[in-house]
């Protein structure tokens, strides 16, 4: 009885002292005593994590790989074969000669049934759309707003031609890809839908409906494609696609969509105009026809990477388990605190 009353009075004392104004306010935060969970790396927890990761990753990897394998893809490189043998010694001169007809016929063989929609891409290799001089050479204001047609800052050296601003200005627009493809299946024209190949948000908000090309490709050097001056930029979908610059020097850009299935064994003949100069920097040009899966185009990378990581985790889990059983080690064993060892060895 007496001891409890003493304790009570003691606590009353301390609370009275705590109420003293000079004392800091008491809270769990100020005392660094917030309830905390303090996990440590126990063998069980770590091995479970590795097992869990491998259990999740292997199936996902398999699924991704399957998805990628299901995609049917036809890739045809045409930059070399579309040079007439007579010009093969100086390809650059051929391609820069505007008076020559650069039509070229190639055939593509469908090895597997392709379900619509089939995406038609052109692929460029060794083309640095991400080059610093190139990637910044545009003016978004000018593209969006017709009243800003004369703002060409950042577009140098393709900002002005003959003393007038260029719309759309800059190196990107100026170097617009200008090969064209006409597809036919069994001598019947295969329609390629070129509507809706660009991002809707670009058409709606980045490229103005009332912005028309002006003074384009009028300079001393002509870069790539010409634009129809009567069509607003928001409908120049090839330009919009092109102006979504690629992050890598190898990239594909959507040319159009074929909205019908292609059967195994079909032969598609393509009549293309080989206008675009990739010869001066020995870049490749490829024509790609591809279906899409839930992961996009054909790309085994994710699947393989998933399987690798999953396998690695499984391997780690197994080896940690083996080490755990072969060489068990008690966690928190005080004998590992070396200051408990008798100094001097006696």
């Amino acid at each position, binding site marked *: 009885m007496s001891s409890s009353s003493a304790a009570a009075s003691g606590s009353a004392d301390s609370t009275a002292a705590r109420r003293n104004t000079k004392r800091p306010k008491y809270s769990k935060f100020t005392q660094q005593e917030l309830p905390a969970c303090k996990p440590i790396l126990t063998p069980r927890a770590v091995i479970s994590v590795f097992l869990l990761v491998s259990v999740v990753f292997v199936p996902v990897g398999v699924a991704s790989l399957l998805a990628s394998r299901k995609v049917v893809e036809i890739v045809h490189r045409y930059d070399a074969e579309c040079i007439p043998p007579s010009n093969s010694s100086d390809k650059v001169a051929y391609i820069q000669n505007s008076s020559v007809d650069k039509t070229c016929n190639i055939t593509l063989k469908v090895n597997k049934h392709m379900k619509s929609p089939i995406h038609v891409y052109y692929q460029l290799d060794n083309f640095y759309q991400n080059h610093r*001089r190139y990637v910044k050479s545009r003016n978004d204001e000018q593209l969006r707003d017709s009243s800003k047609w004369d703002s060409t800052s950042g577009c140098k050296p393709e900002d002005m031609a003959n003393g007038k601003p260029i719309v759309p200005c800059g190196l990107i627009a100026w170097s617009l890809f200008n090969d064209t493809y006409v597809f036919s299946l069994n001598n019947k024209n295969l329609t390629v839908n070129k509507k809706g190949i660009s991002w809707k948000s670009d058409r709606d908000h980045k490229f103005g409906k009332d912005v028309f090309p002006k003074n384009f490709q009028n300079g001393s050097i002509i870069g790539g494609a010409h634009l129809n001056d009567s069509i607003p930029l928001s409908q120049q979908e090839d330009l919009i696609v092109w102006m979504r610059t690629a992050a*890598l020097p190898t990239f594909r850009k959507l040319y159009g969509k074929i909205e019908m299935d292609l059967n195994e064994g079909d032969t598609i003949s393509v009549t293309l105009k080989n206008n675009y100069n990739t010869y001066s920097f020995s870049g490749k040009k490829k024509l790609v026809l591809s279906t899409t899966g839930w992961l996009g185009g054909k790309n085994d990378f994710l699947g393989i990477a998933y399987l690798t990581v999953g396998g690695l985790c499984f391997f780690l889990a197994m080896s940690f388990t083996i080490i755990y059983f072969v060489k068990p080690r008690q*966690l928190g064993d005080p004998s590992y605190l070396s*200051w408990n060892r008798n100094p001097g060895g006696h």
Partner: protein
Amino acid sequence: MKRYVYINDDESSHDLYCDNRISNRKYTVLNFIPKNLWEQFSRFMNQYFLLIACLQLWSLITPVNPASTWGPLIFIFAVSATKEAWDDYHRYLSDKKANEKEVWVVKNGIKKLIQAQDIHVGNIVWLRENDEVPCDLVLIGSSDPQGLCYIETAAMDGETDLKTRVIPSACMGIDVELLHKIKGVIECPTPDKDIRRFDANMRLFPPFIDNDICPLTIKNTVLQSCYLRNTEWACGVAVYTGNETKLGMSRGIPEPKLTAMDAMIDKLTGAIFVFQIVVVMVLGIAGNVWKDTEAKKQWYVLYPDKGPWYELLIIPLRFELLCSIMIPISIKVSLDLVKGLYAKFIDWDDQMVDLETSTPSNATNTAISEDLGQVEYILTDKTGTLTENKMIFRRCCISGIFYGNENGDALKDVELLHAVSSGSPDVVQFLTIMAICNTVIPTQSKTGDILYKAQSQDEDALVQAAARLHMVFFNKSGNILEVKFNNLILQYEVLETLEFTSDRKRMSLVLKDCQNGKILLLSKGADEAILPYARTGQQTRNFVEAVEQYAHLGLRTLCLAWRELREDEYREWSLMFKEANSTLVDREWRVAEVCQRIEHNLEVLGVTAIEDRLQDGVPETIETLRKAGINFWMLTGDKQNTAIQIALSCNFISPEPKGQLLSIDGKTEDEVRRSLERVLLTMRITTSEPKDVAFVIDGWALDFALNHYRKAFTELAILSRTAICCRVTPSQKAQLVQILKSCDYRTLAIGDGGNDVRMIQQADIGVGISGREGLQAARAADYSIGKFRFLKRLILVHGRYSYNRTAFLSQYSFYKSLLICFIQIFFSFISGVSGTSLFNSVSLMAYNVFYTSVPVLVSVLDKDLSEETVIQHPQILFYCQAGRLLNPSTFAGWFGRSLFHAIVVFLISIHAYAYDKSEMEEVSMVALSGCIWLQAFVVAMETNSFTILQHLAIWGNLAGFYAINWIFSALPASGMYTIMFRLCRQPSYWISIFLMTAAGMTPILAIKYFRFTYRPSKINTLQQAERLGGPIVSLGTIEPQPRPLIEKDVSTLSITQPKIRNPVYEPLLSDSPNATRRSAGTPFDFFQSQSRSSLPNYSRNCKDN
């Protein structure tokens, strides 16, 4: 240059000299912005960032919008400037308080109350008792008939004893009323900062006495910031005012202290800077080569054939800008922020509140908490720091009879009480000396109780004890002392007071017993100052024994003695004394000499013993901190024996045979040198033994050691874990700190009194105990605590956590900056080495400012081990002391981690988003998301304890990242319009992110797990023990280990080679110090005999006189 001060002349000097407005402000409203900017730009980091920001304005080379650097830069400057402005505002407020304090000043012959700032040179200022002196004054009047007044100068020079000041002879005897009208001129030098010198002359104008010039010295002045004590009033003429006072002239802004950690971070920053320059040069050259070979073929880039002259510089400069984020701009702000919080945690800590006085701990300096965790030497004061500074009279020895030995309290000793009541003459005389031989002033309170005002705690204890023994000193009026003994009132007239000085070590009174007219000399003082002057024929052996016995108990002793003076002897001596007191040259020495002539042939009565109790928890605190590998030095002004006893009783040194105390002493330079060398030799040898070796040195020998044998003494300082320095002066304390600092040790000085202020300011960390001796130490210190035992918590808990947290935060800051920078560098290899930025400006800015800085800030709540575990295993502090958590090696780990993560993120984003998906904005956002996810998991993995705030910050930040990017994606004007919405709908995005997280984190988890389980550090082991609820090992009897850092041959140690401390390499706390220590090559028995020969020094107690 001289200044002429016309006393009481209201007009003439107003414009000549400044008024008394004190200003400690660094800035004014007008110069704040330019001056602050100038100061901030004197830092290298800031210059660097400014250069980067300026380069970014050149659009040709900038990879991103200049705002991405300018924004954070301006923010950081704003934060620093706000802090400065805030501090300056507080200085302004405290100045204002001092300036607006009201003082009595004579204006136009009338005493008026005005604000202190309106005092002008020449004004007469009146001070009352306990007033602070508002400006430098020359005294002209005092309430004391002899023209004396007492001042406390602690705020100025740190000395707590009262000093006497005297009015100039010319003003002697002027009537109080006439002082208002006094006129004259004082010729004094222009203001300087020498507080010990004032060479001036005064001439009073008629009708005040004659027209003679009266010389003035510092003795005639009272300086600003002193306090008037024990004097009813005093008045003086203002000679220096405002910032021109001696204090104002000597006031400097103290050097900001830099922690060892800051130095390390600066070093790492430097290393990263060099790395960055190398990267920039390599990439710059590669870029130019690529441009000249490849880019000329890439027709669509339209490189002009001939560029401007600076063409070669463009690409390197672009890379410089791209890589500038390698050095995290936010690190200073983050560190300032968390450091502020560490300091707040100290202020808030409920367990560091002194319940007696309810003073919380306080961190005045918010910037050096990490250093607390890295302390290697603690230099502590004794009185008031280890002890309570509460003096209690415990025992006495009167004429050879010991009182109080049985029950430890003489006041309750029946024999003494009996002797008092029976009126034994020796005892009565003893009590009389106890009661009146002092400078105590008794005052009667309204209730009739008698209160004593004493300058020294010892005198207070003696007077109180005498009163308890019925010898009540109850009144002092002028020169008459009145004592009540058993209802008998005795009166004494004080004839002379022979003051206490630290050289004389005694004080005496010459007084006339009014009962019988006899003239008596009463003395009290230290044993060595009294016993040698005993009456020839008196046996003092008894008293020597008593002193030794008491000193062994850790008691402070004083010897009391008296003698009767013949009338003519007194007369003769009195004349000499007066003459000595009025000399101008070497007055103190002359006075001491004259005193010596009368203080001899004393009848020694006995010895008093006063106890100064140890504070609670001092031995435990010292033991714990010594286990933590911290070395203790005790620096005290007290005498050697008392110091040794206190040291023994608080675990400072171990008693024989476990410990050994080596004494360095000697009267001459040569003796000191030999003693020092002997101790050094013994010390070198015994470091190999598990023995506690300490040395003890007194102020006299220390003076030689410091001035002539600094090198040897420094080596000794390195070797010795423990040292006791007695009878040291404040400046010697500071010098000792300086020596340890020069060996690159981190020192903490702790003290409570004004005499510790210099040591506290000198040390890396100064801790003040807000104790009885006032608050000067606490005010000058970086940290102030209520009790010594809080030091344990301050160092082990707050210091350690601060160190760990800052170590993580700083390295993490570099990790995240390097991560994003490496990705940029990798990207440049696939973008024609042209310096394209993969990330857009908004992302880059937000990455540094929001995404990565918020989660890491909650690491201020992280605790690797619980407080209890750390206190139980103080050895774990070694990780902080040796800097195991932040050093080039751990940093290399983080560097490698960021490189690895950059590779993972980069490879996965470019491969998963290849071909048709390789759109710039998308790839950039995929890579950025990968970085954010990885850094969230890195923070999570490095966090040891998750509170709700951690979860909120880490996972909330991840959610915040998406929220912010969705907002940006919803703005058509932004470059990343709709990007994030598109990505979040793509399964491949999520699959890539999870892949990056898993690929990035699993190897790190595996390595961490392996290390944690199979190569655990001591911290890990304790974590395991703590969290698995296993038995936490009690440490048992573990010898404090010799310092691991002197594992090398000691003979190679020199001052220039500060220390060998390996922050990386195990073993911890030196597993086998023996192996390397025994390299001196001296035969074993030789040093055995050496150490034995030094034993007598230890047992000898007092310095022979």
